[in-house]
């Protein structure tokens, strides 16, 4: 259950960025470190105003590298912590996202995607960071990434991101886009007692027996925090169950890195969420996420009106990839259409999961998201 004073229960008209900030507070986030960047700045601004009222900490750091480092520090000191940014800042954060994955620091990173590469188009939407979300830091690791498609989901999925981060001790990413972030919509914030809250698993062993990186059967180690008397060590180096560096021991690397991947991979069915619409008999399946999925739903409805058996698979979880759901939808389909605001990113995963079903990408760059008509046109072309 959420802490009452932090939850603005009621029906609101708010932007996606503000809904995201409220979602964080409702989830129990009590530390935010960030750096101004369009189109994510409003998250920081809203949290700067709200955080002191719930007894939490807001700090504007000197850059995004410092922001994510401070977030990991606060997480290790026991607080739920978050940062929010856009593409350029997300790139700067990558090394320390790897540190968070390696040291299993629960934290949430919001990337409000704009047009890239480089400074790109700061005020226009994009979906160009979705592969970076998965592969951005060096080395092998797994993260969780969610894609909201409304202001309501900016609230709901930010809460869920914290719950997933705390459950799996993994950096969890909210991959929003400029439209979802800046759009004002109706947002319903439920009563505190109806908001499910997950807190990290704490050790029940005494300090002298505590091994900070010894996992339970679920592959997740219980987490002590600084100042609790456990006196433990954590490092970005390959380490053993004690947290001590084992940089020359091949088994230590195999054991640790495999577990960091497996704790997510073996729980895919528990983590992954999709929304299906009119998929039962669909011959043309549109796979979409974020704001584009809303145009896709409209296009699918229009196609049905015209007698085309179209359906929508909306990816709420981007990573781990909902492979089974795509494969199942592809079994019956004659064609899969993937509209994205990039030159073709998630389409590669879709294509891999769809196996022999022809998969077509509908790219849109440099302006507003796809219109329903543009997606309908693609449905008619490939049906």
């Amino acid at each position, binding site marked *: 259950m959420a802490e009452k004073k932090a939850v603005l229960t009621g029906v609101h008209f708010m932007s996606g960025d503000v809904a995201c900030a409220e979602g964080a507070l409702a989830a129990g986030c009590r530390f935010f470190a960030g750096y101004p960047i369009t189109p994510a700045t409003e998250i920081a601004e809203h949290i700067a105003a709200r955080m002191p009222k719930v007894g939490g900490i807001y700090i504007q750091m000197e850059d995004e590298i*410092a922001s994510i480092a401070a977030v990991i520090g606060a997480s290790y000191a026991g607080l739920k912590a978050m940062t929010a940014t856009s593409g350029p800042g997300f790139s700067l954060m990558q090394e320390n996202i790897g540190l968070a994955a390696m040291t299993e620091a629960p934290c949430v990173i919001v990337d409000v995607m704009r047009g890239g590469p480089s400074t790109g188009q700061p005020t226009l939407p994009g979906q160009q960071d979705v592969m970076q979300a998965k592969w951005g830091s060096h080395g092998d690791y797994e993260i969780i990434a969610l894609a909201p498609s409304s202001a309501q989901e900016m609230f709901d999925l930010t809460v869920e991101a914290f719950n997933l981060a705390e459950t799996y001790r993994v950096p969890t990413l909210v991959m929003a886009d400029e439209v979802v972030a800046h759009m004002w919509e109706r947002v319903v914030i439920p009563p505190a007692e109806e908001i499910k809250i997950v807190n990290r698993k704490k050790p029940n062993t005494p300090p002298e027996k505590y091994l900070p990186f010894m996992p339970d059967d679920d592959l997740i180690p219980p987490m002590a925090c600084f*100042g609790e008397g456990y006196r433990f060590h954590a*490092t970005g180096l390959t380490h053993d169950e004690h947290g001590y560096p084992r940089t020359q021991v091949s088994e230590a690397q195999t054991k640790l890195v495999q577990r960091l991947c497996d704790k997510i991979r073996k729980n895919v069915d528990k983590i992954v969420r999709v929304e299906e619409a009119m998929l039962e008999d669909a011959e043309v399946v549109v796979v979409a996420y974020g704001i584009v999925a809303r145009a896709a739903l409209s296009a699918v409805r229009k196609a049905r009106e015209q007698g085309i058996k179209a359906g929508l698979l909306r990816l709420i979880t981007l990573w781990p990839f909902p492979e089974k759901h795509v494969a199942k939808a592809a079994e019956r389909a004659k064609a899969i259409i993937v509209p994205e605001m990039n030159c073709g990113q998630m389409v590669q995963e879709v294509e891999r999961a769809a196996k022999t079903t022809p998969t077509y990408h509908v790219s849109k760059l440099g302006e507003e998201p796809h219109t329903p008509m543009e997606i309908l046109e693609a449905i008619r072309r490939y049906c």
Partner: protein
Amino acid sequence: MMEALEHPFAKYLRAAMMPHIWCSGCGNGIILNAFVHALDELRFDLDKLVVVSGIGCIGRTAGYINVDSFHTTHGRPIAFATGVKLAKPDLEVVVISGDGDLFAIGGNHFIHAARRNIGIKVICANNFNYGMTGGQVGPTTPLEALTTTTPYGNIEHPFNLVHLAAASGATYVARWTTLHVRMLTISIKKLLQRKGFSFIEVVSPCPEIYGRRNKMRTGLEMMEWFRKASVIANFSDPSKAEITPERIVVGEFVDVEKPTYEQLLYSKMAQIAKEETE
């Protein structure tokens, strides 16, 4: 039969992490020793201490001290420590790292943490080069010094770390060499008892990697340089606190108090909470 006696400082160190990685003649052990002495003399509550290090030889210190500790990415210990300190202001958070980590890749974090007066404490081992990667030029390498990446002599002007710290707003600034063990220990004790952003530079010998390329083949020769060149000039102008072959100016340069970031933050939060309830 004599019973095996435990070293009185054994409780401060993680025996499982020994042997340490440091070369013979290295000054890092002296810094660790001074730090542990300071803790012992203060009877410091080890459950209230967090040690954070970055990457480099001295970066391994976080793993050697038996307290809550974190070994961050290169250059980021101060930013990480900021998160810890603000989340749990009752903890003492000490960053122990090197000149390359804190002042090249991490320089931005240093000046901003000092400017904000975050109540973290920073001890920098300045060995004039990147020791762990085999002796490349760094932000404190003296002019004309030979390193693996300045084979014809260094043409970069080095940072004066105590001047930089003072100008950035640090409330306590001192420099000692590893020869000045007692002064260093006294300074570390002061550092641990202060509220604001505090900084000690420790000029430290690196004979294996730096010294042997610069006519100081052994730790002893480097310590000889420190002995001959050091001049104690307490509260002298830090902008004139030079490090040259002839003269190493050491001492305390700044000792002032001003409100810390976390003091201002938590008093602001209390005020807002009060207004909310009214």
